[in-house]
Every structure is written in structure tokens, then in C-alpha cells.
């Protein structure tokens, strides 16, 4: 590459680099700095430096418990989304051109609705006197309206629903990139369709699975609005606690430390996942 073309590409990337710097690097830097400050009255933080916030964040069993719970819920959501998405992606990767667009619209439809509208929708549908309860009562399946809101399953359901496209699209893409001749080759060599799926299709789609799982896990771990609206007081996840610290208690340094701990835990799990998947892609389909 010539000198001038490096400058040319650099220039093209400049706006996005600026954007990332101003809205990602600077705030993150500020937050890291803040997490090492002492608390203060009448100001976001004091002048002195301390590591006490981190000792409290990882030393207090309550916060550790919430962190573990959040990781578990994030993992559960990622796994459920994957299980629902893979068959959809398999189908989507095979449909012809005419239906293609329609299926894609169906898959991305949760993203076409704003987060508040979507959650209020869930609240209306699932409320004590809402349509779902009315229908179940009308059919005689229940005698009393059910309490459907403000519990973990509803939060998980709503999050899986909205995260579906983030899983379906990368997996579909990976499946579409598999040469159809590979499946024919596998068939002609005597492998049944199920064997072909396990030994060829699945391993070759794992990069897409990894991308989808990473996205959904990160999104689930940092979701705030849906757990707050649909989970209420009964579902306490890390983002809720952090917001409480920042906005409720005005403990900015401690809130920042909790946010850093959450980010690091998330990074660690994603890193672990990437490593295991990389070994898996090479290994699956091998003679054991």
C-alpha cells in the first residue's frame, strides 16, 4: 500500500474514529478514573484516590451474588436464544429468494419497535386484567387471573424475543456461506442427513454461533429497561443495582466500580467462550 492511500483510508475512517473516541473511549476513561475516587458530598467524587470501591464491589456477598445471578441469567438467555434461533437460521438459509425478504422482516420485527413501547406492550398483554388472562379465563382454563408480570421468566421471555435477530442473522450468514456441494459430498460418501448435519453443517456454522452468542450475552448482561419494567423489584440484576447507585444513592465512584466489575466479568466469559469454540470448530466432526 502506498503512503498516500494509507492517508486516504485513514481519512475515510476519521469520522467514526472521532465518534468512538468522544463517546466510548473518553467516557470509559472517565469512568475508570472515577471508580478509583473517594465519595464526596455535593460533588460527583472527592479528590483522593482509593481502591476501597473495588474491595466493596467484590468483597460484599450481596454484590457478588447479584453479579453471579446476572451472569447466570445472561448465559440462560444466550442459550435459549441460540436454541430457538438455530432452526430459524437453518430455514432462512435455505428458503428461495421470493420468501426470503418476508422471513427476514419477521425475524427483525422485534427491533422495529422502540424499547419502551415493546415493554409496555408486554405489560398490557400480561397484566392482571390483560388480554392473555381474559382469554384463559374465557376458555375456562383458569378460575383466577394469573400474576404473570414481575418475575424472571417474563424478563427472560421478553429479552429472548428482542435478541432473536442478533442470533439468527449471523448464524444464517454462516450457513449460507457453506458450499452446498459439501453436503452433497457428505451424502454421497454415505453419511445420513443427521450425520451430515453433525459432522459438516454444525461445525462450519460455529463462527456464526459464536458471533450470535457473544452479541446476545453482552446485550442481556447490560439490559436495564426490560428487567426494570417487567421484573420490577423481584428481578435484581447488575445494571439495576448500578443505576440505583448512580442515580438513587449518588454514589458515583462505587457505581463506576460495579460497572467495571460487570464489564470485566462479561469480557472474561466471552473470552472463555471464544477459546472453547475455537478448539471446538477444529475438533467437531473429527474421528475421536
Amino acid at each position: 500500500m502506498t503512503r498516500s492511500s494509507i492517508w486516504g483510508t485513514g481519512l475515510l475512517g476519521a469520522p467514526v474514529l472521532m465518534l468512538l473516541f468522544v463517546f466510548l473511549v473518553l467516557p470509559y476513561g472517565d469512568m475508570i478514573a472515577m471508580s478509583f475516587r473517594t465519595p464526596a458530598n455535593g460533588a460527583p467524587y472527592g479528590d483522593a484516590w482509593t481502591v476501597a470501591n473495588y474491595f466493596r464491589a467484590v468483597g460484599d456477598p450481596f454484590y457478588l451474588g447479584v453479579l453471579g445471578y446476572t451472569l447466570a441469567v445472561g448465559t440462560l438467555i444466550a442459550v435459549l436464544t441460540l436454541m430457538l434461533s438455530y432452526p430459524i437460521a437453518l430455514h432462512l438459509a435455505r428458503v428461495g429468494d421470493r420468501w426470503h425478504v418476508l422471513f427476514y422482516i419477521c425475524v427483525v420485527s422485534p427491533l422495529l419497535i422502540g424499547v419502551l413501547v415493546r415493554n409496555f406492550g408486554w405489560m398490557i398483554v400480561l397484566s392482571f386484567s390483560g388480554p392473555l388472562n381474559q382469554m384463559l379465563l374465557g376458555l375456562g382454563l383458569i378460575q383466577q387471573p394469573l400474576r404473570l408480570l414481575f418475575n424472571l421468566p417474563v424478563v427472560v421471555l421478553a429479552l429472548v424475543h428482542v435478541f432473536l435477530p442478533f442470533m439468527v442473522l449471523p448464524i444464517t450468514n454462516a450457513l449460507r456461506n457453506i458450499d452446498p456441494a459439501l453436503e452433497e459430498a457428505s451424502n454421497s460418501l454415505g453419511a445420513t442427513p443427521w450425520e451430515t448435519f453433525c459432522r459438516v453443517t454444525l461445525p462450519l456454522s460455529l463462527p456464526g454461533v459464536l458471533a450470535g452468542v457473544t452479541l446476545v450475552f453482552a446485550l442481556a448482561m447490560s439490559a436495564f429497561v426490560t428487567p426494570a419494567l417487567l421484573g420490577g423489584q423481584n428481578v435484581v440484576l447488575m445494571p439495576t443495582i448500578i443505576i440505583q447507585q448512580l442515580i438513587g444513592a449518588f454514589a458515583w465512584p462505587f457505581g463506576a466500580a460495579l460497572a467495571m466489575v460487570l464489564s470485566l466479568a462479561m469480557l472474561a466469559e466471552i473470552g472463555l467462550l471464544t477459546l472453547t469454540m475455537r478448539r471446538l470448530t477444529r475438533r467437531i466432526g473429527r474421528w475421536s
Partner: protein
Amino acid sequence: MAHLEIAGLRKAYKSSQVIAGIDLSVASGEFFTLLGPSGCGKTTTLRCVAGFIAPDAGDIRVGGASVLAMPPARRDFGVVFQNYALFPHLTVAENVGYGLRSRRVPRDDMARRVGEALDMVQLSELKDRLPRELSGGQQQRVALARAIVIQPRLLLLDEPLANLDARLRQDLRWLIRKVQQAQGATAIYVTHDHAEAMAISDRIAVMRQGRIAQVGTPRDIYQRPVDEYVAAFTGECNTLVVRVTFKGDGGRYRVAVADTELPVGGPLDLSVGADCRLLVRPESLALAEAGAAALPVRLDSQIYTGAGQRCEVLTADGQRLVFQVPVRRQLAPGDALALAIDPDQAWLMKSAP
């Protein structure tokens, strides 16, 4: 006994008839080639045999039994694809062993057979590489080993050399032939390259628009094609419009070209007075020795090609012929020449209806 029989095979996509009725029989151990331009239905025919496509009508029998109801996995055919279709996440040895593993072959038996197959294609050193670390030629050799290691009832090859450069094509052509003969496999080979088809095949079927134009040995279809299409598709050819003036025994004829009469060969069913096409391959034309029966022509142009000079000449009635002349002969456009046609190499064909 015929090993593979194809009877009345038809396949249409929407309105276009891709295969419009094909009947073939291939003997056990034979190397049989489907030759034709793209879109003639040769690959579709092969894919019907492999079981990737279900034909609309007709039957495919192997060893006397129809295979149409069998899924590809149960047909026991080895397929070599144009784009190799190696499993990218498996090593060379794992690719070759894939079919054996599906057949639940015991592990040490499998390792031995994979080793033998890789020896046969001279790739033993590379058995732990991944496909992306191999050249195109090496990949296709792996694909060949993967197809033969299962000792298939049929070896199906779909333009396996089309993505390789000319030198590699030559080498791999011989390797495919050698492996096929060593295994005694019955092979169906699809190609659009007539030179490849000639060199490798026991018999060739030349296809046109979903039908078979001619089936025969390479010698048959090259020297005794049924029509101009087959003649043109099997190599460089000159065709002259001629009239039969005399019919002898055993397919010997005399024909009139412009004002000259020539002795030629042809099929048995032509009659005196018929308008025909005379096939003269460039290599069966030469400048005439004095006194021999010859066709007077005028030189139109000549190009130096290294091994010779490629000359285009015109007959008295304006028909064009191409042939090679040794370089030492000095020629200039406009020269009057006498052409000798080797009567054993010239072949009469019916005019297109």
C-alpha cells in the same frame, strides 16, 4: 453385461427441457465420458445418477437394479466435484476417511485404507494438512482419494479438472485414468474439453441440447462423426459441401468438390447424387505430390505458428479449408496450390436436415 444403464431419462426445469431423453449403457470397468458444451445436460445427467436430482422420467439401473428410490448415501457412488468440495475443517486424512467412518469401518482398517488411497494419489506426506493449505491440484487429488477409498460401485467425476491450469490438467488426467484402472472402477466423467475426453475415455457420448448426438470410442467420434456438430465439437475440422458421384462397397464413395473428384469413406447408407458434407481434419490435408489426385486451391492467408504454418485456402467454388504446412515451404497469398486429401481420413456426413 452393462453395469450402468440409463433408460429414457428426462428432466425439465420450468419450461426448459434439460435432459430430453437419454439412453446409455456403460460396461463394468469402463471409463465413459459425457462430452458437450455448457447447458447440454451432461452435468444434470451425472447429478441424476448421483442422486442429487430426481429425474422426471426414465430409469437408472446399476448392476441390473434401479437406484432411483435410493438416497445418495445408500447408492455407494464416489463423486468428485468441480470445486473439489473438501471439508474445510477436516485434515486431508480425515477428508479421505470420511466415507469409511460413515460405513463404520474399524479404526486401524480405516487408517490403512486411507494411507493406501493417499499413496495412490501421492499425497501421503500431506495427510495432516488442512485443505486450505493445499494447491488446487492437490485438493483435487484428495477429492479423488476420498471418492475411491470407499471402493464405490461407480466413480462420478463432474469436470474435475476445469478449475486447474493446463499443465496440471495433463498430469491429473493420467492420474485419474491410472487410479481408475488400478481399482477396476466404472467411471462416468463429465467434461467440455474434447482433448481431455479423447485422452482419458474408453467411450464418449457427445451431447447436444439434452440428447446424445453420438456414442463411440474416441476414434469413432473423431474420425467418423455422424454430423457437423459432433465433428466440430471433437476437434478442429473443415467441412466441404460435396455431391456423391459414385458408391463403392463397404462405405467407399467418390465425391465431387468443385470440378474435382475424390475417393472418400462414409457411412453405408448414402446414395449417388446426395448432397453431403465432407469432413477433412487439418492433419489429413497436405500439399500434393506431383501426379497424385489433388484438389486445386488458392492460398488466402498463412500464419507462422512455430511448429508449422497455418494456411487458409479457398477452393474454386469459394469453400474455405484450414491446414498446416511445413515451415520450409515458401508460400505467398494468391499462390495456386494442389491439396491431397487422405481418403482414409476424409469422412462423409449427411447434410443437416
